[in-house]
């Protein structure tokens, strides 16, 4: 009896319309005090000012497939700069007729990365797959075997160069950083001092100066006639730089481990390498996933600094296109395009790191 009564009341007396649904939400969150109301109104006004103008510029008045001259006449965005120069922006100096090769190599790389993100695939076979994949990619980029025309690394550019610099930079820097972190924690004074000096020296200078050192100063020390490939020099600078930062992050993780973990490992009779490999590092590296990924993401974006030593990465090829009188002045469109490429890569990285954190979470 009482049950029927209460059901009836619930049906008949609904909360007032202004406190539920969309209106209720707006009232509770956007207009709940005079300050918030003011903010809401101001934000709405700004959005109204910006969004229609942006849409008009980007979509309504824009040109997608025209020449530069037509763009200079029109008022809207000139997206035509992208299709007209796409191949140079993406592949730089790679010979025009052979540009399918870097394209296939990039697809392979993305495919491999995508396949390896599933932890169920982390087996020995994956390592062989990577070695094989890297060999194919190197072959596609460099050529010279199996009837493929040889292409010098000086002609690599655009997106493949950005990916090479970052993928190799990050994969080489990570283990180096871990070793440096362990070295800094070491009880052996010589090793400890060397690691501390290295880390502090590298962290004390900006990446730009390291790149300049590698491209301007380093060649002067070499005997005349011997030159080291420009890409290798820049790559080395990026690796050395990133490794120092990763080392400090990993050190944070190592210091976060309780003394008990070390003692437990010791009492089991594990030696130093076993302790580190089986007990300490798996836990320490897990704790520092978020800051590590931050560093990897910023290192990925930092590769665009090679612009200043005239390596034609994605940013530099775009700038080169912009210095053509036909397309001069459409920098917003071109930069938006490469910003999108960078965003997709960085977002994928941070997304994956969050997934990895969830999967590895053991509750302590």
């Amino acid at each position, binding site marked *: 009896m009482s049950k029927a009564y209460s059901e009836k009341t619930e049906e008949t007396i609904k909360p007032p319309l202004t406190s539920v649904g969309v209106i209720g939400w707006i009232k509770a969150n956007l207009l709940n005090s005079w300050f918030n109301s003011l903010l809401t109104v101001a934000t709405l006004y700004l959005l109204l000012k910006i969004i229609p103008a942006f849409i008009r510029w980007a979509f309504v008045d824009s040109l997608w497939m025209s020449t530069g001259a037509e763009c200079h006449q029109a008022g809207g965005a000139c997206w035509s700069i992208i299709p007209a120069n796409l191949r140079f922006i993406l592949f*730089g100096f790679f010979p025009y007729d052979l540009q399918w090769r870097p394209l296939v190599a990039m697809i392979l790389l993305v495919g491999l990365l995508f396949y390896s993100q599933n932890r169920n695939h982390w087996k020995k076979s994956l390592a062989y797959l990577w070695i094989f994949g890297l060999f194919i990619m190197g072959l596609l980029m460099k050529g010279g075997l199996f009837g493929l025309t040889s292409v010098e690394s000086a002609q690599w550019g655009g997106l493949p160069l950005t990916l090479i610099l970052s993928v190799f930079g990050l994969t080489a820097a990570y283990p180096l950083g871990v070793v440096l972190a362990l070295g800094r924690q070491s009880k052996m004074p010589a090793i400890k001092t060397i690691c501390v000096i290295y880390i502090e020296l590298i962290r004390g200078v900006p990446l730009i100066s390291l790149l300049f050192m590698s491209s301007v100063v380093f060649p002067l020390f*070499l005997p005349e006639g011997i030159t080291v490939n420009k890409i290798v020099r820049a790559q080395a600078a990026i690796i050395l730089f990133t490794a120092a930062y990763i080392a400090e992050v990993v050190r944070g993780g190592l210091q976060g481990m309780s003394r008990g973990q070390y003692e437990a490992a010791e009492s089991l009779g594990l030696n130093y390498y076993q302790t580190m490999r089986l007990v300490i590092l798996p836990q320490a590296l897990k704790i520092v996933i978020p800051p590590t990924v931050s560093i990897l993401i910023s290192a990925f974006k930092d590769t665009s600094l090679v612009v200043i030593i005239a390596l034609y990465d994605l940013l530099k090829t775009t700038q080169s296109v912009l210095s053509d009188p036909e397309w001069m002045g459409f920098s917003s469109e071109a930069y938006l395009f490469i910003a999108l490429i960078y965003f997709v890569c960085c977002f994928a990285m941070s997304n994956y790191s969050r997934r990895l954190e969830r999967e590895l979470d053991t509750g302590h």
Partner: protein
Amino acid sequence: MKFCKLCVVVVLVMVMATAGMAVAGTLADVKAKGFIQAGANGDLFGFGKPDEKGVWRGLDVDTARAVAAAVFGDANKVKYTPLTAKTRFTALQSGEIDVLTRNCTQTLGRDTDLGLDFVQVNYYDGQGFLIPKKLGVQSAKQLDGATVCVLPGTTTELNVADYFRANNMKMKPVVIESTAELAKAFFAGRCDVLTSDASQLAGTRAVAPDPKAYVILPEIISKEPLAPVVRHGDNQWKDIVNYAVLAMINAEEMGITSKNVDKMLKSKDPKVQRFLGVSAGNGKALGLDEKFAYNIIKQVGNYGEIFERNVGVNTPLGIERGLNALWTNGGLMYSPPFK
């Protein structure tokens, strides 16, 4: 211990190999590797810049091609290293490149302190001012108090400051890193005046939303003789690069173009015969093939042709010959006799 011995041997071999290279000279090195490594700009339309297919084009690029035509008889045997204003001289000093064709201004300091040698100038430039017509200014002397858009780091910034100080005028510089952004800022009205090398001002004006609304002021406030550069101390290589540029100028003086050069081979004029290698002498003196000048003109063109093709009035830059005309037309391009 074995490892140590191996190291010593490797180091010794490397030292001996490099010592051998250093002695041999650039021409021998270049011939051994089969191509010329040229330093180029990469971002300067009309002088050195890849087109949308990645093919290098420009006046400086054609100069490098002329050197390749002289050395190999094939203008395509050049590889380009894009260089910034900061990395260009190191690349040459360290031997990474054989010749620097990257719109470098010849100055006393660079010629001496940096251990470099400048050869024949391939473009006489100078710094000028671009202003909107509505400013109503006729002369750079009236620019007192103007905001000036200028690129940082090069001599451009210094020149304009000197000019204003010398004329007792005040200026507010607006410094922006890239040429394209600088032009954008200027057209958006962020500064009254844009200053840059005159060769660039013409190109910048051409891409203005309304080119007729802008004028280039008559004053040229600096001398910028742009010339290819080689390492100091290799005189034979310097002669080769020098006479590769001069051959293009000389060909224009003689009226020889890439179109009529084959016909000119049959010319009775001993000067033309000597120049094109029909009668021997010049090539041997330089250590090159007797046909070197013929190859340059046939494959690259004379100076007038490469000027018109890259920066002339029918290109987006639309530059008049001016100082770069032949001396017979009131310019500065003058070639010594080829004999």
